[in-house]
């Protein structure tokens, strides 16, 4: 019985969870674009006295989908998913619409500056990256490449303390 009660406490906190999503906006060369989307980021985002913090938010590289199966496989391979299966954001601190964190991709850690807005029970955060900063090689397939600069959007629910 106690077990159930304890579970119920967890449910109360889980039930407010909205949808988690990471979207990477990729520009192709010579032209065009696609989005790589994952709906499986994991972690905890805490809001306390207006300050957002997260020890770790991670996402599996192979959870990203681009709309074309072969392109998914190439995306995962390019991101070296077999060696570094996750991208991880750690040490997030954000307040007043701006924040900083450490982002690790392909085994390389770099600081990122984030802007965000609160939307109900979740936060919508945006930041820009250069693929080359994470030792990712230039991506090109049969003459069609992708821009080094990518935009990332993350929507993630938070818990209030």
């Amino acid at each position, binding site marked *: 019985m106690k077990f159930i009660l304890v579970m119920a406490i967890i449910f109360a906190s889980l039930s407010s969870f909205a949808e988690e999503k990471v979207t990477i906006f990729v520009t192709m060369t010579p032209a065009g674009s696609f989005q790589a989307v994952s709906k499986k980021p994991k972690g905890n985002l805490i809001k306390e006295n207006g300050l957002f913090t997260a020890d770790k938010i991670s996402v599996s590289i192979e959870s990203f989908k681009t709309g074309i199966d072969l*392109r998914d496989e190439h995306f995962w391979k390019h991101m070296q998913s077999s060696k570094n299966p996750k991208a991880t954001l750690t040490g997030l601190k954000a307040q007043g619409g701006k924040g900083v964190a450490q982002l690790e991709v392909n085994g390389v850690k770099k600081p990122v500056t984030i802007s965000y807005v609160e939307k109900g029970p979740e936060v919508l955060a945006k930041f820009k990256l250069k693929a080359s900063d994470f030792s990712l090689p230039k991506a090109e397939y049969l003459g069609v490449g992708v821009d080094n600069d990518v935009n990332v959007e993350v929507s993630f629910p938070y818990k209030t303390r």
Partner: protein
Amino acid sequence: MNILLLLLTLFSVKASSYSNFIGHGYTSCLNCHFNPFGGGPLNDYGRVVAATAIGSTLLVSKPVDEEKLAYMSGFLFRKPKQNWLRTQLNYRGFRVVRNPGSTENEEAKWINMQADARAVLKFGENDKFITVLNFGYAPLPTSVPEGTESSEWRSREHYVGYRFTPKFGLYAGLMDKVFGIKVIEHIAFSRVSPQVTQNDQTHGVTAHYIGESWEMGAQGFVGNLTQDEDLRMKGGSFTFEKTTFGIHRLGASIKSSENEYLKLLAYSVHARLNLKEGSAILTELGQTNKKPENTTDATTERFGLLQTYLRPWRGTYFLANIEYFNRDINQDDYTVRWGPGLQYFMGQRIELRFDLYNTRSFALKSSTRDSWMYLLQTHIWF
């Protein structure tokens, strides 16, 4: 009539190539074609897209190995072993049935529309320098009197191109004219009125520039040099497209040309909307001013196109094709051609298509029964 125009306009202004593939995120034809304005031979990437995103997996053993499909997308069903030559064979034929179901007037025939052999020689980093050759069968238009001596085998394209930078290229030779949305329906009013059908290639010089979120083409042409000189339409054209909301394209085109008999000025606005997951809407609205030489009479034709593509699953597209044509904007009479269609890419190299056309005339001084036509098209390429 005005309301129809307004509806068409609403969807242009808002949110041979296959321009509808913007639905897969490909805003520019240059991703898949050697010709930056689309049509003609596919490059290696275009072949792979055809195999892995467009074509169905009906004929492929399961589970589907996408890498294998990509590898086999080459001309000889494998990845080419050299980088300097690409070839393609292309056939398009269809059965056209006019007045179907009519015991008196039904007319059916098979037309071999196109049978080409294409070759591309390419050199330099990122294929900076290309030579494109395209020779094949092109039937004479039905309006040409029988017995007219004219070969049905000819070069459809032959040009050289050089990309000075990935953004800028120059092309010279026989190419399609640069104007509007290049839909594959060459009977479309939006193609016929401004004279940019599949047989309206011209000799000239074309410049192509692609920016961060826009693309343009400018072309100067002297007509098709295989035609008699008095018939050659000489002039220039310009087209511009801007990417909006990251995924759609809005554009405008203008073309001016003349020969000894006719002066032509065409202009249009268009939109290509990405509805995602392969679905798209194409729309174009324009006018063509035609002035016969040695007269003061000029007529202005008005054309509109709304083409919708719904892709329920890989390989299949449901179409609705709605066209508008007014032969003289000073008159109220106009024509609407409407037709559902179904396009099925059985695999990378096989396309089957069914189009039904109903044509209705709207005229103050007459009222006639609609005319009907359907097409069953087969397109095979290697």
